[in-house]
């Protein structure tokens, strides 16, 4: 691969992720609006929000770590996007693998923890401790799912996994091969997005949106961007592992939007669990299903 292709891909892949992420956020908001029986925001609303936040004229920072934390949040996802294969663009995907990706996806959470730690707001601190707790909760089933997938495909290299699925058609898709793991994966990716019923660490009514409590202007803008990346990344990972990846852009977008739509719908119709209930629930149901799925996979 030529260096310039790589450079273009390095620029394009996060940009695509951002744009698609914005569209997903819009879809999420529109879908929520529809169930709430209203019209919802205009088409460019997520974009307006981000630009507005970036064009704030005054800006409060709570110190170097605060800045650094936010950089980690964005940087982690930008790096992650490069490891996520999309149709036509592989980026670093061949060089990295699923495990790298999962590690990279932890960086933003840690960055957030770092940044919020310096904001010295108890709500933020509680939020961070909740975020880390829930990470613990959803990572257990997720790791099992990933382990199961690696076991099935025999590799952790994403392009390979995609190729294997696409070669075999729908029957070779992860969802057909390991349905239980797919279900557990869907639940844990949903939990990863921190949406109801697992939305414990933003919880406005409890801890005043937790880690975001002291985030203003560009910082909040960064978190909005992070949200776009996050929902995109999580959807793409699920599509890659279980829905055969993207054969072309049309199918790819259809698939990732479908996954995002499922997640968004669930968000609208459930309240949030308490933190301990989240752990209990995630360690009980998805973990159980994942283990069962793993067992089935191992028996094959």
């Amino acid at each position, binding site marked *: 691969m030529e260096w310039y292709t790589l450079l273009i891909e390095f620029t394009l892949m996060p940009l695509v992720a951002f744009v698609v992420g914005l569209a997903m956020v819009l879809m999420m908001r529109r879908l929520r*609006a*529809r*169930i709430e*029986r209203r*019209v919802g925001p205009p088409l460019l609303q997520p974009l307006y929000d981000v630009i507005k936040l970036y064009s704030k004229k005054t800006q409060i920072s709570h110190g170097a770590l605060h800045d650094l934390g936010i950089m980690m949040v964005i940087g982690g996802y930008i790096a992650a996007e490069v490891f996520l294969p999309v149709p036509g663009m592989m980026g670093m995907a061949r060089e990295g693998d699923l495990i790298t990706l999962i590690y990279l996806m932890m960086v933003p959470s840690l960055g957030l923890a770092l940044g919020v730690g310096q904001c010295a707001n108890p709500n933020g601190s509680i939020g961070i401790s909740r975020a880390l707790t829930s990470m613990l909760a959803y990572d257990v089933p997720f790791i099992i799912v990933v382990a199961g997938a690696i076991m099935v495909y025999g590799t952790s290299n994403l392009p390979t996994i995609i190729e294997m699925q696409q070669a075999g058609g729908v029957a070779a898709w992860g969802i057909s091969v390991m349905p239980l793991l797919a279900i557990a994966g869907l639940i844990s990716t949903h939990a990863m997005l921190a949406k109801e019923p697992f939305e414990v660490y933003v919880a406005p009514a409890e801890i005043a949106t937790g880690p975001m409590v002291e985030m203003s202007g560009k910082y909040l803008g960064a978190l909005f961007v992070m949200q776009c990346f996050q929902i995109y990344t999580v959807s793409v990972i699920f599509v890659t592992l279980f829905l055969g990846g993207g054969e072309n852009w049309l199918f790819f977008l259809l698939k990732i939007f479908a996954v995002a739509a499922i997640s968004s*719908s669930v968000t*609208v*119709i*459930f309240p949030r669990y308490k933190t301990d209930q989240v752990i209990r629930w995630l360690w009980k149901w998805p973990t159980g299903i994942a283990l069962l799925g793993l067992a089935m996979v191992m028996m094959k």
Partner: protein
Amino acid sequence: MTDIKYESKGSLLRPFKALAFLGREPVTEPMGPRPASENYRGFHLNDWEKCIGCGTCKKICDNQAIRMVSIPDLPADPVKGIRAERPAMDYGRCCWCGLCVDLCPTGSLSLSREYVHTCTEEQISSYFILPDPKGMHGQGYEKGWAKTADADLIDLERQPMHQLAPDERTDSFAEVVDGFDPQSALLEASRCIQCGMCHDACPSNMDAPQYIRAIWSDDLEAAIEHIYDTNPLAHVCGRVCTHRCESACSIGIRGKPLSIRWLKRYAMDQVGHDRVRDIVSKRKAPLPDSGKIAIIGAGPAGLTAAYDLALQGFQVTIYEGLPQGGGMTRYGIPEYRLPYNRLDDDIDIITSLGVVIHYDTWVGRDISMTQLEQDNDAVIVANGLHLGRSTRIPGSDHAQVYSAIDLLRKITLGEHFDIPQRAVVIGGGNVAMDIARSLLRLQQRTHGRTDVTVTTLEARDQMMAAADEIEEAEEEGVVIINSRGPRQCTVDKEVLTGLETVHCISVFDAEGRFHPQYDEDDLTLYGADMVVEAIGQAPDNDFLGELLTERLEWVRGRLKIDEEGRTSEPWLWAAGDAVEGPDVIHAIAGGHRVANSIQQHLASLRKASA
């Protein structure tokens, strides 16, 4: 309907049913204001034609959001109770409770269905508006919350006043009206919305709202205080005042005005005479610049001036030609309307302040004007209107043709005259009613039957007499014939037989001048053995003496006075009916006016000499 039990664990799947709403239309309203409901309480509307500027809205507003703005262009008429003021609303205070609408006596105020107003800091003055019928932004929104019959907070009905039944009252001169009992007085007083229209309309500017408020709070002595601020003839005015206040009362616009006159009477009747005297005596506050004043005539104007001046320490002497004081209120008003002992009470209070009244003393006969001028610092002429005007129709010089004012005086003085079997009264004013009803009583007493006819030039709705007077007169049996102009008094062999009248088509011409038109074909004769002319009075100014009469300036037979009541002579003031026409409360106002003028005049003289 499903029932959810506490024990049930709920379902993770049932919420998914809500996803059905993905396929349903949103309930969101289109952008922009929806039309408000029919009785919405939005921004104010005010019908400027109906609004009288009474300021009741301002009073009921619990947020002091309403302020009255005087607008010079608007017509103002204190007599009709209209002020050139309109309410302005401060939307930085208003809470849109609509009490102003519910209490508006005219119903001019309402709330519209308009409710959107936004502005920036610079435009904040737009929060203060002068409501008109077009609405806050001139867009003509429809009326929302407006007055309805069942939600009016104004009490439109008067407290009933008990009075003698017609058959009980015609055989005596007993007072017709009973006066309020405490309970109904309180209730009547509570109707007052304190708009002060009565105050503006009253020639004497009596502060009726104040004493009505005092009556309502059952503090009658305070009420007396307020009454005596502006009126020393409280008993008189409590009974026979022409109550312009009531015609101006803003409650009267849609309902029956407050019985302000009866309320004053109630306060006076309830507080004993001695107590009233004590209260009034406390008001005495002698000024250093006092002097000697002579007043000619102990009528309302003279008595009022005497009261004012006596309070300030002047030595006041009144010269009265008749044997008792009160002037026209005694000799022109029958006792069934104003019992004489009440009048005596009023005069007693004034004399108790040190005013000396010489009765049966005719100026010009018993004492000369020159003498008065020499002995006093100032002289007030308040001689009243004691001469009756005549129709001068053929036969009106007959002995049995009387002027009403002479006859009334005769009745009061107890002088003998032949009580007629049948009497015809010419005139439609209050005096006509007075004489008709007095004659009727005398007839009942003497003959046991009554026959009094009143012929008026005016149509029924144009009659000058007060409506209740007319009503009471008819109840008692007086026959009132409208639109009849007197043509002649028919005399047969030196004996008066009746009054011939002609139909009157119209009284005034297009410009409003007195110019009656008759239908000469429509003649009717009313048989009578006495005809009484009650068409107006004139002053008797002979006492002034020729010299003075020539020196003074005159206007249409009356002394010319300036707005302070001064004549063209520097020491001579004039007040009362003689210069202003017949009306008690005007006379009282005139009394105040001259007293004030004299006091100032003398003070400035002292100042100049000192």
